[in-house]
């Protein structure tokens, strides 16, 4: 039997916002170099769970967690976790493209510079490499000095992906990365994610069920903070085992 490489193991994990339990006792594994999609109605806790994977929720003051999230076997909620390093290894791309108000080049070089890389030739290489991997190099190579905000929505989103890739992450978390984009840009991003999957593990939250069906290997369905069903995307969309999952994906929910 081939050993499955689980990059994350989520164990009895809960998140509270004040008294509200947003994520309830979730158990889940995230497999390396796979795309795992999290679907569910608004308020089901999917974004909270996603943000827990690189401790973005720490930024919300009232939040606290129970249980464990093991990243390569080590609990990221341990007291001595280097959260900055964790977020470098587990990057994030958001719903609305949010480039820094600086040049295309600076957007991508920002992270490596913070990490202490100063040599121009080395930075050039990192920037080009990241832009190539994000499939936007051809479009921006002649305007690296122009503002990142001058690009189209789809280009900005790929720039943000390049910015994350420059940090050489092992995992990329995507929170509704195409909900602000047109269908062509969406298709570009989806193709990009499938390409990136070869080198990066991807977890994506999406409201677009067809998107989950198109690109993910595994699908997680959440409802009211609970993890209702987790399985191969094929199974979830053809023959889900849970009635709630079935009702949700066939649009007969509630």
């Amino acid at each position, binding site marked *: 039997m081939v050993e499955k490489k689980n990059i994350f193991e989520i164990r009895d994990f809960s998140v509270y916002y004040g008294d509200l339990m947003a994520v309830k006792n979730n158990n889940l594994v995230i497999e390396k170099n796979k795309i795992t999609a999290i679907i569910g109605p608004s308020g089901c806790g999917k974004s909270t769970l996603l943000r827990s994977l690189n401790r973005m929720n720490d930024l919300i003051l009232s939040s606290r967690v129970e249980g464990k999230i093991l990243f390569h076997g080590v609990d990221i909620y341990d007291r001595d976790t280097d959260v900055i390093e964790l977020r470098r290894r587990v990057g994030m791309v958001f719903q609305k493209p949010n480039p820094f108000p600086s040049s295309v080049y600076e957007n991508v070089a920002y992270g490596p510079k913070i990490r202490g890389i100063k040599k121009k030739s080395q930075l050039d290489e990192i920037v080009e490499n990241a832009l190539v991997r994000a499939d936007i190099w051809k479009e921006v190579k002649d305007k690296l000095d122009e503002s990142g905000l001058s690009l189209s929505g789809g280009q900005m989103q790929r720039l943000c992906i390049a910015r994350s890739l420059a940090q050489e992450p092992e995992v990329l978390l995507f929170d509704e990365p195409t909900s602000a984009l047109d269908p062509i840009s969406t298709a570009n991003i989806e193709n990009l994610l499938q390409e990136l999957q070869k080198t990066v593990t991807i977890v994506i939250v999406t409201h677009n069920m067809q998107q989950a069906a198109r690109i993910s290997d595994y699908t997680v369905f959440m409802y009211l903070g609970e993890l209702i069903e987790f399985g191969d995307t094929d199974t979830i969309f053809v023959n889900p085992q849970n009635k709630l999952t*079935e009702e949700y994906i*066939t649009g*007969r929910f509630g």
Partner: protein
Amino acid sequence: MAIFDEELRALKERVLKLGSMVETAIHDSVRSLVERDSDLAREVIRKDHQINALDVEIDEECTRLIALRQPKARDLRFITTAMKITTDLERIGDLAENVAERAIELNEESQLKPYIDIPRMAEIAQEMVRDSLDAFVKGYTKMPYEIIKRDDEVDKLNVQVFNELLFYMIQDPNTISRAARISYVSKYLERIADHATNIAEMVIYMCKGKMIRHTEIQGNE
């Protein structure tokens, strides 16, 4: 989503309509043989065009629903099942047409023997079609297994008919052209039961998401 539910209901009704047309074709084709009624046989042949047309219509509707509604889970399984079922129904229609063609030929000569097993086969095959469509519409999960078992009975009758006809042919070569035709009819009916079996198997897939085609059924579940 209410529109989609309505479309699924309409699709179901069309499949049922096709099913009832096909059942009538089986029944009438065999009756045209037993009662030596060639006009009825010609009617079966003429009506096969309607079956073909409805088959095409259902296929187009399924394709449209897949494109426009992106069905998932049980909706997806229902639509793909409807597509496959109609192919089987259309083929059953063709076989009934073939029975009618042989009936016309046989009716032109004197009757070789009384038809006993042939109507029995037709009756079982027709029941199999009706029950499998009933299971399809109502989502019955047990009934398809019962239907699949009945196929063995039809297979046995087919062998029995053939052996009997062989006996006639050996005894008297003058019977060969009639006996061969009756043997065809028997084979057509046996094929109809096979198609009904396919439908029952697809219903199991639709209900459970489990393909049992080309596997041996063990027990009842």
